[in-house]
């Protein structure tokens, strides 16, 4: 049994890339790890690189005002969004996005957990929740404008309202699906109701909660743009629409590219956070897969 313990403890530490190994082999394994990461990145990025390359080459000689060369768009992107006046638009968009998404995420988890623990409230509100979930949020924009005006509050409210549903419903579903043995264990360990919810139910439901948060992020970005299209004087969405209306197609394309960058970066950050947070989930699943 001792051997068994040592073997498993060894395999548990194997992930930390040979900390006890000699310096030389440690360096070799670092190089190997780096080339593995590079290899994985290459596997994922080749199509992206090919498409961008094709766009660049295909548009290089373009004289169409609607489809300017990519090289020019990138120059505009830099001039406008990195060093130019559009930086303020970017900042305002990101601010609303971050605030709206944070509210949606926190409130979604909080209300989801509350509904999970209060059965009567849950059963009574369930039809309305699903109605609101399937209601396309943009149709609420006029109503929200009537109440909150056209300032920052309106945008944050729209983003939060639209993005809360995936997180809320996934939290509720995830918590309802928590294994009864885990709940029994928590009670057997003498945990109070609040501690059970925070220390057992929430982490057990985390994979589903995170899936909901991811969905909410996408909705947040969409609603960020939509809220800027309507009755607004700032933001990436506003910039794109204004550029298009004033025949500034270079500006319009640069705004669209900027939006793609924001979406891509937000998604990347999310995936990094998810991999950290749900490390245990993917690890355990991989072990199950092998068994």
């Amino acid at each position, binding site marked *: 049994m001792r051997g068994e*313990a040592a073997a*498993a403890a060894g395999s548990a*530490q194997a992930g930390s890339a040979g900390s006890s190994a000699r310096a030389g082999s440690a360096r070799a394994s670092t190089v190997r790890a780096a080339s593995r990461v590079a290899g994985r990145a290459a596997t994922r990025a080749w199509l992206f690189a090919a498409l961008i390359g094709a766009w660049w080459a295909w548009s290089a000689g373009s004289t169409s005002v609607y489809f300017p060369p990519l090289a020019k768009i990138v120059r505009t992107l830099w001039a406008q969004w990195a060093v130019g006046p559009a930086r303020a638009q970017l900042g305002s968009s990101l601010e609303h996005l971050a605030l709206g998404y944070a509210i949606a995420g926190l409130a979604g988890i909080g209300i989801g957990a509350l509904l999970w623990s209060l059965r009567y409230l849950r059963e009574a509100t369930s039809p309305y929740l699903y109605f609101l979930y399937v209601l396309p949020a943009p149709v609420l924009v006029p109503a929200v404008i009537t109440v909150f005006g056209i300032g920052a509050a309106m945008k944050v409210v729209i983003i939060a309202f639209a993005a809360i549903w995936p997180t809320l419903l996934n939290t509720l579903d995830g918590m309802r699906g928590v294994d009864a043995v885990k709940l029994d264990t928590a009670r057997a360990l003498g945990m109070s109701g609040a501690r059970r919810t925070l220390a057992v139910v929430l982490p057990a439901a985390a994979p589903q909660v995170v899936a909901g948060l991811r969905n909410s992020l996408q909705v947040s970005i969409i609603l960020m743009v939509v809220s800027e299209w309507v009755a607004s004087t700032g933001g990436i969405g506003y910039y794109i629409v204004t550029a298009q209306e004033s025949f500034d197609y270079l500006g319009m394309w640069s705004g669209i590219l900027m939006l793609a960058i924001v979406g891509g970066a937000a998604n990347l950050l999310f995936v990094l956070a998810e991999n950290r947070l749900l490390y245990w989930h993917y690890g355990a699943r991989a072990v199950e897969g092998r068994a």
Partner: protein
Amino acid sequence: MMGQAPQQPVGTPRGGDPAEHHPYAPVVALNGVRKAYPLRGGGQRLALGDVTFDVARGEFACVVGPSGAGKTTLLRCLAGLAMPTSGTVEFEGTPLRQVPAGVGVVFQDYGRSLFPWLTVRGNVDLALKARGIARDSRPARIAEVLASVGLADAGRAYPWQLSGGMQQRVAIARALACRPDLLLMDEPFASVDAQTRFGLEDLILRVREEFGVTVVFVTHDIDEAVYLADRVIVLSASPGVVTEVIDIALPRPRDQVATKRDEAFAAYREHLLGLVMTR
């Protein structure tokens, strides 16, 4: 504490703290416990029909019975996880309302009862935290209890990185972390292979001496029950009632080879198999 005197009448207290508890008071006492579950579409199913027995301090009691005898229901009632429909369960003289601090529970399926988002130490730490053990005394307690189950080096691993037998040892360590008076185990070794199982059986015998803990151990395995127990409580088929209580007067320390070769072991085994199989 437990190593000697196999002929001592079982059911009398051996060990424990007489200053703290009445020396002859049982650790846990069931009196006329019935448990019925409502059935879908009306009516009810009686899982336990009138179960009465005591478990004395320091005793190792095994509960056996055919499948569907309500063994798990019985254990849930003993733990305070389920309330009996009628009758009482008293733990150290007080009727159970919830799981008392003096009780540790080990469930059958370690894969479901361990928390995969916490490391081995995290799992044990949570148990201590839940019972309000001060932060600065927890690391020592964790190290001690992990060493007792032979997992001193596995604290930083996640449960799912360990073998099945080791995972169940984590669950045992977690249940023992708060030094319970009573350890309840629900078919704890049913999902590990035979060799690991023998190791775990010996481990639980050693650990209960080390911690001076009373054990109620539910199993469907007659050999396991005879090997481990001071006393075997036999439940009938559904609804479960106690059909017989058998004192196991095999010498301790027990040994997987010598004990099981003993003629008395074979006799207990035969008798119990007869009781469980004929129903």
